[in-house]
């Protein structure tokens, strides 16, 4: 189970900002989201979208446990 957070245009596109998913890896999580909403799945893999696991940016794969927070971050705008 991972707590997934979406920010910026990704949250608008998905229609949700926070949801829980039963996934033990980032790849599995991406698969679950893409099955649920293929367009969102594409957007999460799109250019400039970064992933933070427990508030730390990660590249590639990551293991997820029950308490993990996964955030998908579209390109940052600055303040």
């Amino acid at each position, binding site marked *: 189970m991972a707590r997934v*957070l979406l*920010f*910026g*245009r990704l949250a*608008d596109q998905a229609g949700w900002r926070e949801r829980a998913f039963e996934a033990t890896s980032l790849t599995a999580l991406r698969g679950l989201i893409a099955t649920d909403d293929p367009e969102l799945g594409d957007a999460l893999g799109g250019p400039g979208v970064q992933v*933070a696991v427990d*508030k730390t940016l990660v590249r590639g794969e990551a293991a997820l446990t029950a308490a993990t927070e996964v*955030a998908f*971050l*579209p*390109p*940052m*705008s*600055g*303040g």
Partner: protein
Amino acid sequence: MTTGSKIILTAEPFEPGALLTRFCAGRAETGAVASFTGLARAEQGQAAALELEAYPGFTDTAISDFAEAARTRFHLHDYLVVHRTGRIAPGEAIVFVATAAGHRREAFEACDFLMDWLKSRAPFWKKEHGPDGARWIEPTDRDRTDAERWDQE
């Protein structure tokens, strides 16, 4: 309001003058305080409001890491960064940065350096609400080149 050491993200309006007064108080060895206040622009009626989204615990940590680098680079005695989140009306303050140093050059440059980074690279997501609906906005080319000035030095 979430508070880092010297980083504050707040959904409430703030008064820059009061922040500056408090920041300047009780300093015997600081010869220079520079500050910058950014206000939300109306853009000739095109921007009814700005909406700024932050990721608490991530955005403030990123700002704090950068501000600590600025402290080292410019020999700052202290700094304060206050940033609004949520919906911001034209004329309201979005950001306040104050820097304290022994002499004015370090204070001015550190303030400029922090603002260039905040405007172009800080982890915020910005939406502009206008007469034709809302749109997400990204840094302008000018914001990027302003920030790049510091990479070359």
